[in-house]
């Protein structure tokens, strides 16, 4: 069964009909990227300023802690349905911009970036900031010239977690009539078309991994040059080598 099954999957993936038109793979990839990009953009516009404010001033820290914990407990699957209850399916919008899905994705993307931005700015060496202040830098000046560049790798790590999570959950959007690559999986289930389900799953997984890789590359690009830890690539440094570093606590993928 297995060999012929993979044959059917390859057949599905190589059928030109599946690669053209509004319902083909390229169109679905574009939908998936628009849906994810728009949600991530809105989420960043909210999470980055708030994270910077809290990290810089040290105010409202409880907000970050409770958001990080609570955000993990809310099932993204249920969040989609709650927004559909509230806003309807939004069928008058294009498949890539259905309001209930965008709202749910934005809400899911906020906690990882917010938490990391706050931690990144909070963790900047106090002596460095004192030195900047001593040189006459203002609060905003230290934020822009010292805290943001030093915190950039950690902030980008947060954005990466958010991005991967958004790309993953966007696939679930198909359950509530959204577009994107999830359509192949959900429509495949409806039609009991297992090769299509598998091909769709493969495409979703590849897109998520590519997102992870792209953001990891960006992260390495902004890592301070003197640090060798950030230049070693994706291979995790053993905790022995980074004594005192808090373990990366990833947030759930939808």
């Amino acid at each position: 069964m297995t060999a012929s099954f993979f044959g059917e999957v390859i057949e599905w993936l190589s059928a030109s009909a599946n690669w053209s038109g509004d319902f083909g793979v390229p169109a679905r990839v574009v939908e998936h990227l628009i849906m994810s990009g728009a949600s991530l953009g809105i989420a960043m516009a909210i999470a980055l300023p708030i994270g910077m404010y809290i990290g810089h001033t040290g105010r409202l820290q409880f907000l970050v802690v409770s958001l990080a914990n609570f955000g993990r407990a809310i099932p993204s699957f249920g969040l989609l349905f709650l927004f559909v209850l509230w806003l309807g399916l939004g069928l008058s919008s294009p498949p890539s911009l259905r309001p209930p899905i965008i709202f749910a994705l934005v809400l899911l993307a906020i906690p990882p970036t917010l938490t990391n931005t706050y931690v990144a700015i909070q963790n900047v060496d106090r002596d460095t900031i004192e030195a900047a202040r001593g040189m006459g830098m203002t609060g905003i000046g230290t934020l822009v010239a010292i805290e943001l560049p030093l915190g950039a790798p950690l902030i980008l790590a947060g954005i990466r977690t958010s991005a991967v999570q958004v790309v993953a959950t966007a696939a679930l959007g198909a359950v509530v009539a959204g577009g994107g690559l999830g359509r192949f999986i959900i429509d495949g289930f409806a039609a009991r078309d297992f090769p299509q389900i598998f091909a769709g799953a493969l495409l979703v997984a590849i897109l998520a991994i590519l997102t992870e890789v792209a953001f990891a590359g960006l992260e390495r690009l902004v890592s301070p040059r003197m640090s060798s830890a950030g230049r070693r690539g994706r291979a995790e440094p053993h905790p022995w080598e980074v004594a005192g570093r808090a373990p990366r606590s990833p947030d759930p993928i939808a």
Partner: protein
Amino acid sequence: MIGAPFWNWDWLFGHLDLIGDRLLEHLYLSGLAVSIGLAISLPLAVVAHRRRVLYGPITSVAGILYTIPSVALFASLVPFTGLSTLTAEIGLVSYTLLILVRNAVTGLSGVPQDVKEAARGMGYNERQLLWRVEMPLALPAIIAGVRIATVTTIGLVTVTALIGKGGLGSLMLGGFRNLFPEIAIVAGVALSVALAVVTDTLILGGQRLLTPWSRGVRLRVGAS
């Protein structure tokens, strides 16, 4: 259900047995996944702790599994293992590995060298050292991982509604597909969040009992 009020309490209280069943299924699927995850992760963590070169490869594989979206992972297994608990568990267990291995290795690596020297000086062999010194001292970090993995898994179980399981997720999907009134969606989400919060609190309480020496050490917000 046309014409029924949104807050359909009659349906809710008339179907407490159904809701209870879904809750139990949710608990069963999550509990099983975290238990199997631990049974796989702890030996892996000990290996990665002893042979440092293996830490990178082990976390890389776990990281790739973790990056695959749940709907894709479950869907890709269906052609082979069907709409079954096995399909759900393979996916759910895969997602716990990264968190559990990483936290356990961090915990094991954090055991002070002096303490290990002292234990060796008292004649402990490697196995005794592991079970009587390293593991107990690594327990707070391991349990911190179990807490994250449990809360994450409770959220992910809802997605398995798409493959005919789902626990409380099947209430949500049923509410969306008009098999149940809309209130089922709200009940499903509320109970799922409540289950996560209560389980997390219970594990934290269990940790306080198991590691009385670490009392007073507060968990800090970690970066992801």
